[in-house]
C-alpha cells in the first residue's frame, strides 16, 4: 500500500498511523519533520512543483516498498505557509519486522530530501530568505546507492 499526499492542511498523525497499521504487519517506523522553534523563524513557506512532486514521492515510496518488501509506505508533505511546531513532513514504513521498517523509514526521508521538488522560505521578522540546500542531505541520500543489501 502506498499513500502519497501533498497538502495545504495539517498532518494528522493518528489518521496516518491507522493507515500504516491497517496492513496488519508487525512493525511501523515513522519520521516527522517539524518547523523548529529555536532559531527565530516566524513563518516557513513551502513551495513545490505540482505534478512533479507527487511523481517524485511515488518513486521514492515504490523504491522503498521494493527494496524492503514493505506492506505500506506513506509520505505526507505540507505545502504553503506554516509556523513553528507544525509538522512539515511525515513518512512511515510498515514491515513484518523492525529492521526493515527502520531502514526503509530512513530511506524515505533521506531520498525525499534530495529527490522531491520542494523549496523552503523562512521569514524572520521582516526578512524572508530561501533555505539553502545542505551537502549532508546528498551524502545521506547517496548512502542508499552504495550500501549493498
Amino acid at each position, binding site marked *: 500500500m502506498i499513500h502519497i499526499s501533498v497538502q495545504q492542511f495539517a498532518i494528522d498523525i493518528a489518521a496516518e498511523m491507522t493507515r500504516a497499521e491497517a496492513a496488519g504487519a508487525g512493525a511501523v517506523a515513522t519520521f516527522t519533520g517539524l518547523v523548529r522553534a529555536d532559531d527565530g523563524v516566524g513563518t516557513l513557506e513551502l513551495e*513545490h512543483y505540482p505534478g512533479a512532486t507527487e511523481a517524485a514521492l511515488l518513486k521514492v515510496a515504490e523504491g522503498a516498498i521494493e527494496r524492503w518488501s514493505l506492506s505500506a509506505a506513506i509520505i505526507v508533505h505540507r505545502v504553503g505557509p506554516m509556523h513553528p511546531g507544525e509538522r512539515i513532513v511525515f513518512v512511515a514504513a510498515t514491515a513484518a519486522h523492525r529492521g526493515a521498517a527502520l531502514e526503509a523509514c530512513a530511506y524515505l526521508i533521506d531520498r525525499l530530501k534530495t529527490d522531491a521538488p520542494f*523549496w523552503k522560505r523562512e521569514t524572520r521578522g521582516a526578512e524572508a530568505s530561501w533555505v539553502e540546500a545542505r551537502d549532508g542531505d546528498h551524502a545521506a541520500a547517496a548512502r542508499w546507492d552504495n550500501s549493498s543489501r
Partner: protein
Amino acid sequence: MTIRMVYFAWVRERIGTGEESVEPPASVVTVADLVDWLAETSPAHAGAFENRSRLRAAIDQDFMPLDTPIGRAQEIAIFPPVTGG
C-alpha cells in the same frame, strides 16, 4: 518549437514570473544552452541564472543534469537545489 518554462523559489522571484512560453533557436541543444540563451533575453533572466552551479532542471517533470539535450521537451523547469522534508 515552443517550450513551456517553469520556475520555482528564488529563480521564479528573480525572473518575476512562474512560467512563460519560449521559442529557442535551433542552436539551443541542451538545457544549459537554453539557460544561456534565456539569460540574454532580459536582465532579470541574467540575474536569476547568474550562478549556473546553483541551478537544477527538470525536463517534462523529471530531474535532469543541465547538459541534457532538451530533445522534444514540452516543459522545462529551472530551480534552485531542493530543500523539502
